[in-house]
C-alpha cells in the first residue's frame, strides 16, 4: 500500500509539485531515485509479508468456543530463519547503497563547473570562482562572479558545488537535481557532483532549520544551454546600460539616496558595492525575489520594498521602506517605490 501510494505520488509529481524528489533531472538524482525505488519495493514486500501473516493469525487463531491455545514457548529453527531472512533483504538494499556511498566520494572531473554557495540568514549567495571580472588588486586573476538566490547551471556539464555559511547551519537542496548537504559555518562542505540533464528552473530550499525565516529561504536552479549560460555570465560583469525610462532613472537615484547601496551591490554601478545583502546585479532577469519566495513582478517587488517584514517576517537588516515614519529620511512614498522597482527590474539581459 505504502509503495503504491508513493508511486502514485510520483506519477502526480513534476508539474503540480515542482519541489518533488521523484522527478530526477540529473544523473546523480536519477541514481538516487533508482535506489529509492529499490528500497520502497523491498520495504513493501516486507510490509505485505508481516501484515499478511499477522492478518491471517488474527483471523485463524481468534478465540471461539472450544479453542485452546497451543502452549509453545519458541522454536530455535524459526528464530534462525527470521534472523537470516532479513539479512538477505539487507544485503539486497545494503550492497548497492554502500557502493553508492563509496562512489559519492569521487573527486570532481577536471572540467567540472565549480560553484561556491554561501548560506546567510535567510538567503543564498552564489559565487562562480574565477569567472568574474579581473581582480584590480591582482592583475591576471579573476574575481568570482557573484549572484544571489538563483544558481545558473549549463546543461550537460558536471557541477561541483562547495558550501559555506556565514552564520548558522543551513542546508542546500535542489530535489530534482541533487540531495541536500549542510552549509556549516567554519567548514567548506562539498556537494556530490551532478550533471543537469534538462533545461528548466528547478526549486531549491534550505532544509536545515536556521531561525525565524527558515521557511522562506528558497532559491531556483536555472539549467540552460551553454550559450545562454555564457551570455548570462557575461552580462553579469558588464556595466548596466543607462536606465531606459525616466522612472527607472529616478529609481537609480533613489537607490543611492535611500541607502540601499550600503548593503547591495550592483556590478558596474558606482557606489553600489554593499556586501550585507544579496547582490542585485541583473535583478530584472531573476525569476523570483525575496530568496525564492514570490515571482519577480512589478507588484511583488513594490510590495517587497514597501513592507517586506510582512512578506517575510524576521528579515534581518532591511527595513520596510514604505512603513517607515515619513520624517525618516529612508521612508519611501509609493511613487518612489515604483521608481526603485522600475530601476531594479529594468536591469535585464537585453
Amino acid at each position, binding site marked *: 500500500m505504502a509503495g503504491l501510494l508513493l508511486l502514485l505520488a510520483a506519477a502526480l509529481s513534476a508539474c503540480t509539485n515542482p519541489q*518533488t524528489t521523484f522527478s530526477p533531472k540529473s544523473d546523480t538524482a536519477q541514481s538516487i531515485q533508482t535506489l529509492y525505488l529499490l528500497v520502497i519495493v523491498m520495504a513493501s514486500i516486507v510490509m505485505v509479508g508481516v501484515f499478511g501473516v499477522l492478518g491471517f493469525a488474527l483471523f485463524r487463531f481468534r*478465540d471461539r468456543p472450544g479453542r485452546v491455545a497451543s502452549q509453545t514457548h519458541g522454536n530455535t529453527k524459526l528464530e534462525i530463519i527470521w534472523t537470516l531472512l532479513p539479512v538477505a533483504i539487507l544485503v539486497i538494499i545494503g550492497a548497492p547503497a554502500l557502493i553508492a556511498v563509496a562512489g559519492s566520494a569521487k573527486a570532481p572531473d577536471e572540467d567540472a563547473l565549480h560553484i561556491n554557495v554561501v548560506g546567510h540568514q535567510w538567503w543564498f549567495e552564489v559565487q562562480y570562482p574565477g569567472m568574474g571580472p579581473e581582480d584590480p588588486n591582482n592583475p591576471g586573476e579573476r574575481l568570482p562572479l557573484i549572484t544571489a538566490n538563483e544558481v545558473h547551471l549549463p546543461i550537460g556539464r558536471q557541477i561541483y558545488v562547495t558550501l559555506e555559511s556565514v*552564520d548558522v547551519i543551513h542546508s542546500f537542496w535542489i530535489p530534482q537535481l541533487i540531495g541536500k548537504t549542510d552549509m556549516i559555518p567554519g567548514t567548506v562542505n562539498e556537494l556530490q557532483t551532478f550533471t543537469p540533464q534538462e533545461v528548466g528552473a528547478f526549486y531549491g530550499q534550505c532544509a536545515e532549520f536556521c531561525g525565524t525565516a527558515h521557511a522562506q529561504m528558497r532559491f531556483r536552479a536555472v539549467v540552460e544551454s551553454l550559450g545562454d549560460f555564457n551570455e548570462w555570465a557575461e552580462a553579469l560583469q558588464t556595466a548596466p546600460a543607462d536606465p531606459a525610462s525616466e522612472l527607472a532613472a529616478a529609481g537609480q537615484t533613489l537607490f543611492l539616496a535611500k541607502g540601499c547601496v550600503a548593503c547591495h551591490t550592483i556590478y558596474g554601478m558606482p557606489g553600489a558595492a554593499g556586501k550585507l545583502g544579496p547582490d542585485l546585479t541583473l535583478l530584472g532577469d531573476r525569476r523570483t525575489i525575496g530568496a525564492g519566495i514570490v515571482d519577480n513582478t512589478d507588484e511583488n517587488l513594490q510590495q517587497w520594498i514597501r513592507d517586506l517584514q510582512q512578506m517575510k517576517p524576521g528579515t534581518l537588516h532591511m527595513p520596510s521602506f514604505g512603513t517607515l515614519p515619513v520624517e525618516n529620511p529612508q521612508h519611501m512614498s509609493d511613487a518612489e517605490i515604483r521608481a526603485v522597482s522600475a530601476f531594479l527590474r529594468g536591469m535585464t539581459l537585453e
Partner: protein
Amino acid sequence: MAAYTELLKRPVSPTGVWSWLTTVDHKRIGLLYGVTALTMFFIGGIEAVIMRLQLASSDQTLVSPEVYNQLFTMHGTTMIFMVIMPMGAAFFNYLIPLMIGARDVAFPRLNAFSFWMFLFGTLLMHASFLTMSAPAMGWFAYTPLTSLEFSPTSGVDYWVLGLQVLGIASMAAAFNFVVTIINLRAPGMTLMRMPVFAWMTLIISFLLIFAFPVITIALTLLQFDRWVGTNFYNTAAGADPLLWQHLFWVFGHPEVYILILPAMGIVSDVLPTFTRKPLFGYPAVVFAGVTIAFMGFGVWSHHMFTTGMGAWANGVFSFATMLIALPTGIKVFNWLGTLWGGAIQFNTPLLFSIGFITMFTLGGLSGVMHAIVPVDTQQQDTYFIVAHFHYVLFGGSLFGLMAGIYYWFPKMTGRMLNEGLGKLNFWLMLIGFNMTFFPMHIVGVLGMPRRIYTYGADQGWDNMNMFMTIGSFVIVVSFLVFMVNVIRSLRSGEPAGDNPWGAATLEWSISSPPPHYNFIEIPTITSRYPLWEKDHSVGAAQAHGHDDDSHAVHMPDPSYWPLVLSAGITMLAGGLLIWKWHQILGFTIISVFGLLALYATYRWAFEPVNEPNHEEPHQ
C-alpha cells in the same frame, strides 16, 4: 528527634494533599507520573493542533513564524521528555515492584525525588511561556543557532536548564530501578523469569545511565557559552558546530530506544494474556532488547548523513543502522509467533498492541530507508522524517503505552475501563493517526521540508496538508473518548477484582488496587507465568493476607525532604535565569536555595526510615 516535632511534623496521614506531596510509595509516585504525563500530552497535543491549523493550507497567517518555531520546539521537547518518558516511568514505577515481588523500590525517597525533579523541570521549561520567550530553535537545538548571537532571548536558557533538571530526575530513577531489579526480586524470580516489561525497564535504566551524562555535558558547555562567554560552540573562535551534533545524537539515539523499549515490554506482556499462551521466544525477545540498546550507541551519526562527514563515516553508520533492523525484526516476528496458535481475545489492550506492531513495523521500514545514505539526502529534514518518527513514537510508543493503560488501569484503580469506549478510542486513534501521518510520507517525497511555518501555493502541498489537519482532529476526538472513558470508569466502572484478564504475572495475584505494602508475604516464584501454574500457590499466599496481619509489614514513612530538595535544586536553575536579568537578585536566590538544598540533603541523610513510637500507617 525532637526537632521534627518542632519544625515540621513528619506527615503520617495516608490521605489528603500532604500524603501525596510526601509519599514514598512507588504506586502513588507512578500515578503522579502518569497524571502529569497525560496533562503534558494534552498541552503538547494543543501545540500540535495549532501547527496543523497553520499548515492546513498555503500562506496561512494564524501564527507568526516566531510562535510557530516555539510551538514545534516545545511540541517535540514536551512529547519526548515530558510525555513518553514519564509515561514509561509511570508504568515502571507502579509495576516493577509488583512484577518482581517487592514491597517498594530500593530507594523510595529517591523515587519521590525523581518525580519532583521531573515535575519541577517541566514547570521550569514551561515558565518560558510566561515571559513570552519559549525556546524556538528546534528540539535538537543545533549550535550555533543556540548561541547568544543568534538566539538572544532567554528561550534557550529555559530549555537548557529545564533539560538539566529533567536529566537529574531520569538519572536518579535509572539508578533506583537498576538496583531494585537486580536486588529486590522475590525468591525464585530469576532474571529469565521476569516479565519482559521488567527486562525492558532494566535495559532503559542502563541506557539512561550511559546516555544522559552525554547530553548533560553538551548542555553544560552550552550553559558556559551562554552565561560566561566561553567558546565551546563559538564558530567565530574556531569551534566546530558538529561537536554539539555528535554529543546530542550520542544521547539522542539511545533516547529513541528509551522511548520505544517500554512499549515493547508492555506489548510483550499483553500478548500472552490475550492469546492465552506464553510469549514466543522469550529469550530472543529479551536479548533482542539488549542488542538494540547496545547497538543504539553505535548509530548516532545516521542523524548526520548530510553534514559532510565523508564516505567512510557515512558508510559505517549506514551499515550499523541497517544491522539494528535485525533485532527489531526478531521482536516483531516473535510477537507474530505469540499470536500464532493462540486463542486471541480482542480486548482493547490487545487491539492497541496490534496497532503498535503494525504502526511500529511501518516506522521501522521507513527507518531502514533513511539508513540508505543517498536516499536519506533526499529525505533528511523533510516531512518523510516527520512521518517516520511519528510512526515510531506515536504509532509505536504511544500505542504501546495506551495498551498498557487499558491493561493495568483495573489493577491501579480497581475498576475496568469500558470496552466499547475503548474500542472506539482505538479505531478513532488508528484512523486519525494514519490520516495525519501517512500523507506526511508523500508530502516529504514531494519536497516539503520540516519546521517550515508556511509554504507557497505553487508547491502543490495544499490538499494533503488539509487532509492531515482533518486527521489530527480525529486524533483529538479519540483522546476525548479516552478521557470520557477514564472519568466514567473512575466513578462507576465495573469492579475489576484481582485478575480480570486471567493474566499470569505476579501483579495480578494481589488486590486491585494493591495494598500499600503490596505483598503480605513475599511470594516464591517457580516459573515465568506463576499464576498460570496449576496450584496457584502465589495467589493463595496473598489471599489469606487480607486480615490484619499487615502490622507485621514495615514500610518507610513519608518524607518532606525529596520535595524540598528538588525544589531547592530547581530554584538553583531558576536563580541562574534570574541572574541574567538581575545579578544580585539571582545570586541571592542561588545562595538561599543552595543552602536549602544542602539542608534538605542533610536532613534526608539523617532521617530514620520510621519515626520511633509511631504506628505504621495503614490503609
